[in-house]
């Protein structure tokens, strides 16, 4: 039995080595923390901080290439650092469980959900088939899944992301372990789904008194659920303490920088220059996908319908929505990477919605796009310089002039001009994204579309890129269309806001009005779901 004040998990001076030849010797070094009964400890850090490695290390799931070279892991008083594989297998699911980030890939696609939960019971208990089924249905009910019998008989691909994550939670908690390790379980989910899952985890944790080690990179989540917080940087534990202490009075520079980088939910009114010319006007834009197959039914999917907005020079319009809302479709239509089914897109005085490809080319330079994935946005076989001058040279600029302009723009995005001779793989994600922004600016566009351009970046890197975008907006008076699912980012960056749901714009207006007094029910639900919204970071 576990005496109430003995911590469930104690990690003492843990060091985990990396394979030789990497840029550092250890994934984590000399890390110590503990998780008490009924307590939620959030492990926060950016990429490469080692947080996932610690989580898998506790469960004993690390590959041989990442050995534990120092320290101890103590679970309920038992030293499991050097435990035998058999003992570890016994402990898993019965005393400690883990849930992962991507619910689609974390579930076996060829087994029913019920069978996957049942497997846990078959492995660790001696219960008969009928008893196991009862227990499975119980836990499925407890994670608030409707129609438990149907859920149990379904395959993972038939469920939504949120439902799959609930199945994962059910699998993890069916044997009532004392420790739950959650490795970014909500990162891949929509905002509203995320809120539901967080609520579920909190509820279950309170009911069962489970200790939770919650890995995340999102400070909003930390603000929402943590009791205590530990901050990791490149394998070092730089700060640990109660949530309010760490978030409001951080002691370490790195923590302070991270919290400072979290975009704020602004409520102030931003000045709107009504004299500025309208750079982009979209009216009744629609895109419908018409799927016809030989034997299946004909499916008409309206990805976007009746979308209208306008952006003046020097302004930023944000389009906010969850997956499937149509925001990316709108972005790609504006840049004419896909052809709209109906509606008008006006760039200045030119109508481009219906223009055939041939006539479109000369106008392409006026609207440019930056994509989400910095690792796939640059051709790996061409130098940065070659990538940069491609655009202007298409429109007749001489090579020398283009190279000079490229150097200037790289400086604008705070990249050294020497980057021109290097290849993309020599740069980090944030640096690549800045290069992509510079590349887009090479053709002097009037409108810049940022399609989830900062979503794949760590929070500190994101802050850098957002600063760069702000500077560009001020200096070049570019009109920006900023697509994002992150409300904080939208709040910090956008003058105007459009909220999209299921292909339609449900709310549209100046940012401070939409955030301050949302009219539409969906908008209100979306804002209510943002984690840590009541927590004012940095103030």
């Amino acid at each position, binding site marked *: 039995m576990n005496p109430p004040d003995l911590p469930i998990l104690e990690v003492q001076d843990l060091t985990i080595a990396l394979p030789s030849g990497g*840029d*550092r010797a250890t994934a984590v070094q000399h890390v110590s923390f503990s998780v008490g009964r009924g307590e939620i400890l959030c492990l926060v850090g*950016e*990429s*490469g*901080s080692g947080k996932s490695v610690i989580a898998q290390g506790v469960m004993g799931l690390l590959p041989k290439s990442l050995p534990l070279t120092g320290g101890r892991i103590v679970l309920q008083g038992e030293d499991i650092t050097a435990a035998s594989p058999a003992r570890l297998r016994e402990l898993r699911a019965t005393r400690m469980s883990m849930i992962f980030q991507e619910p689609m890939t974390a579930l076996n696609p060829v087994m029913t959900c019920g069978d996957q939960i049942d497997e846990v019971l078959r492995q660790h208990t001696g219960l008969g088939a009928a008893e196991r089924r009862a227990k499975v249905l119980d836990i499925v009910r407890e994670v608030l899944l409707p129609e438990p019998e149907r859920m149990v008989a379904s395959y993972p691909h038939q469920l939504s992301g949120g439902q799959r994550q609930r199945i994962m939670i059910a699998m993890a908690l069916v044997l009532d372990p004392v420790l739950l390790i959650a490795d970014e379980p909500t990162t891949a989910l929509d905002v509203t789904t995320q809120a539901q899952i967080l609520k579920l985890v909190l509820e279950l944790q309170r009911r069962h008194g489970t200790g939770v080690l919650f890995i995340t990179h999102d400070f909003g989540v930390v603000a929402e659920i943590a009791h205590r917080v530990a901050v990791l*940087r*490149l394998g070092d534990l730089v700060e640990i303490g109660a949530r309010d202490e760490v978030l409001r009075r951080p002691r370490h*520079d*790195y923590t*302070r*920088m991270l*919290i*400072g*980088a979290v975009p704020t939910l602004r409520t102030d009114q931003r000045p709107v220059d009504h004299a500025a010319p309208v750079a982009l006007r979209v009216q009744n834009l629609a895109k419908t996908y018409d799927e016809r197959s030989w034997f299946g039914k004909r499916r008409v999917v309206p990805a976007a319908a009746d979308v209208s907005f306008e952006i003046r020079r020097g302004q930023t319009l944000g389009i906010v929505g969850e997956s499937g809302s149509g925001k990316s479709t709108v972005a790609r239509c504006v*840049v*004419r*990477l896909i052809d709209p089914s109906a509606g008008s897109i006006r760039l200045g005085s030119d109508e481009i919605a219906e223009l055939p490809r041939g006539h479109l*080319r*000369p106008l*392409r*330079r006026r*609207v*440019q*796009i930056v*994509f*989400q*994935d910095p690792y*796939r*946005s*640059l*051709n*790996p*076989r*061409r130098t940065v310089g070659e*990538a940069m001058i*491609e*655009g202007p040279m*298409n*429109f007749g600029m001489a090579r020398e002039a283009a190279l000079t302009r490229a150097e200037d723009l790289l400086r604008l995005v*705070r990249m050294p001009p020497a980057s021109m001779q290097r290849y993309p*793989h*020599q*740069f*980090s*994600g*944030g*640096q690549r994204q800045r290069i*992509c922004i510079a*590349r*887009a600016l*090479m*053709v002097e566009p009037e409108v810049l579309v940022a399609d989830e351009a900062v979503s794949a970046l*760590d929070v*500190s*890197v994101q*802050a*850098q890129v957002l*600063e760069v975008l702000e500077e560009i907006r001020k200096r070049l008076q570019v009109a920006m269309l900023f697509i994002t699912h992150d409300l904080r980012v939208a709040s910090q960056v956008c003058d105007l806001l459009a909220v999209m749901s299921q292909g339609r714009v449900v709310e549209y207006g100046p940012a401070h009005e939409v955030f301050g007094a949302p009219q539409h029910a969906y908008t209100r639900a979306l804002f209510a779901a943002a984690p840590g919204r009541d927590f004012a970071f*940095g103030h």
Partner: protein
Amino acid sequence: MLPTNFEALSVEAASVQRQASAWQRVRDNTSVRIGAAVLAVLVAIALAAPWLGTVDPSLFDPASRDLKPLASGEITTLEGETLAHRFLMGSDSFGRDIYSRVIYGTRVSLLVGVCTALVALSIGVLFGLVSGFLRKVDAVLMRVMDGLMAIPAILIAIALVAMWKGSLLTVIVAIAIPEIPRVTRLVRSMVLTIREEPYVEAAVSLGTPQALILWRHVLPNTVAPLIVQGTFICASGILTEAILSFLGVGLPPDIPTWGNVMAEGRAQFNDHPHNIFFPGIFLAVTVLAVNILGDGLRDTLDPKMARRT
């Protein structure tokens, strides 16, 4: 006031990967080294054939028929002279020196292998590009390729050679044709995937015309898998030529190829297994070397494909 000096404190730059250049990785790979080394030896043998103690492979002498390896005998030159000759690998039922035929056979096999690969690759790349870029042609072309793949390659080759009479050119074309569908599919799928990549979309929105996109962005990223595929086609070509000749439907019997030597030696196999084994060993070693080279190239140049095979 919270600091905004993100650059100084950000951890991101610390974890940029250092990558050796592709060429260096290729050179360091053991499989590539072994395969390339063996092939270099074979090419040397092929080029130096006349000076390796051989005679003209078509020379024969009825008095020296069916000799065992290392036997001494005589051989008649084209001018009618009779020379004493040591038959290192024995002689066949016409009295020809197997050693000479095997050494000269190296030339034919390597030539057939390389040419087959080149023909199959060029046509396959063309078809694949057309298919990937022109949707209307794609549907039809892919059906044709599927149909071609449905007929076992050997049968196509046999039938074509039978119809066109065996000569070096017809054999190469006949062996290359069944290899074309696979290359086409590979190129087509690469074109389709690469076109979806954000960097290609960026090029489109920067106003780059389709032809330039093909040349600059699509083709360079297809080179590596094609090289790998090429080596495997080469190995397959050498094998197929040997099989065709062995069955009697390949190159004319007077051209010395390993397959022909083995075909000739079939009848005497019970007493003279060396007729089959000597050319067989050369054949196996050559194909093995090419395959090992291909494996090594695949592991270094195209890691994604490496796991698929």
